[in-house]
């Protein structure tokens, strides 16, 4: 049994510390997985969701929109084209958000390690909280992965989402390497980092300079039938 660390928590007001712990306790018991799947590992999710393994008993449920989801499951290989969509989805999700890489493909490309069309390390493009290896992992493995994520959240150790703001230049650089220098998303990550006080040493850099140079202001989508 791992003891709950208290020394790293906010010091000073004891009420705020209690409130943080309560917050994490509640957060770990109400997780929504984004209903979005890539690759073949998605086939293991229906048994996880439904009565056989029933992830709802852990408080985990599927959710249809990224803005209301907590967990982004990457269930297999991510082609370069898919990765663009995954990045758009990830940036839309509200913090705190958690990324789980399922299958060997998200670790090192898996059986597609020599393919020109798939991204190899998911970790280069977004911070990953947890990998569940296997090709594909069984529902038991996914349940056990979700349980360890819940435990980490409860202990306040799963704060990888902050890394995306703190090292935005690194992640953006890897994205630009694949998508070209014109790459931009509708989400203003630097603005968010400044607003939430998450600016780190790696937030600004050469790649964010490129972004700020080429960034086009967003226009409303044209509606037509």
């Amino acid at each position, binding site marked *: 049994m791992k003891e709950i660390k208290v020394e790293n928590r906010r010091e000073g007001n004891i009420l705020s510390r209690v409130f943080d712990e309560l917050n994490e306790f509640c957060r770990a018991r109400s997780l929504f997985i984004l209903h979005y799947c890539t690759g073949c590992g998605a086939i293991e999710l229906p048994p996880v969701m439904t009565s056989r393994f029933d992830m709802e008993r852990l408080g985990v449920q599927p959710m249809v929109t990224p803005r209301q989801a907590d967990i982004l499951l990457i269930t297999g290989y991510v082609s370069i084209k898919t990765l663009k969509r995954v990045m758009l989805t990830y940036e839309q999700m509200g913090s705190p958000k958690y990324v789980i890489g399922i299958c*060997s493909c998200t670790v*090192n490309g898996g059986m597609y390690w020599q*393919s*020109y069309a798939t991204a*190899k390390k998911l970790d280069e493009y977004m911070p990953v909280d947890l990998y569940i290896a296997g090709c594909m992992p069984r529902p038991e493995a996914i349940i056990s992965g979700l349980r360890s994520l819940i435990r980490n959240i409860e202990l306040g150790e799963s704060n990888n989402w902050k890394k995306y703001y703190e090292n935005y230049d690194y992640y953006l650089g890897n994205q630009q390497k694949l998508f070209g220098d014109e790459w931009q998303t509708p989400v203003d990550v630097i603005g968010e980092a400044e607003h939430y006080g998450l600016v780190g040493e790696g937030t600004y850099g050469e790649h964010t300079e490129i972004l700020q140079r080429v960034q086009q202001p967003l226009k409303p989508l044209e509606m037509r039938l």
Partner: protein
Amino acid sequence: MNLSQFEAWLADIDHRIAGVEVTASNLNKRRNRVDLPADKLVLFLEAVKGEASFVHLSAISCVDWIDDGEFELVYHLWSYELNQLISAHIRVSRDPGEYQSIYDLYRPAGFFERDIHEMYGLYFHGAPDMEKFILTEWNGIPPMRKEFDSEEFVEQNFSWQEYNPEWLKELVAEGGGVVIPCEEQRFSRSVATDHGIDQQHSNWSGCDVSSKLCRIDSKYRGGD
């Protein structure tokens, strides 16, 4: 036209179109292989569509014969009346790599030709659209051409991470998994050297135990 009439018709076709060579398959009575010169293909397709009811073009496949300097195009045609398959094989030169579209005869050919153009760089004159199709993010040489070295591309553009879990070490210690030595990890053919592609990248810079184990993992897991 019934089946016996069709067989006689197909046997006679080389008298009408010069250079057509018909080979019936020994394995499957429904398959007919036809080899013909590239400039006779449209003539042949018009004949099989108009006279012998081959209205369905299921696919166009392309093979890159880099040693011969040629692309082989295979047009797969199906007849719903005769339940027969004709695969018409032609060869076109790799350089400059262009051929004529059959979009006017078979509408689905538009997609197949666009796909072949994207994957092999073979241009079809008269096709409705030769723009990017699936690989919208791709700016390199067409990836299915034999001179494209996928492994070298991966080595230059992507990196690896340590992944060496306990269960995998146990498997390898027991002699399990498929161990691929570094020098055998390239799938590219030895012919690549004849075409001037540098072989100095053939040894993986990151070929330490862990990256090797990752590949063993994928091989091993892919097999079951």
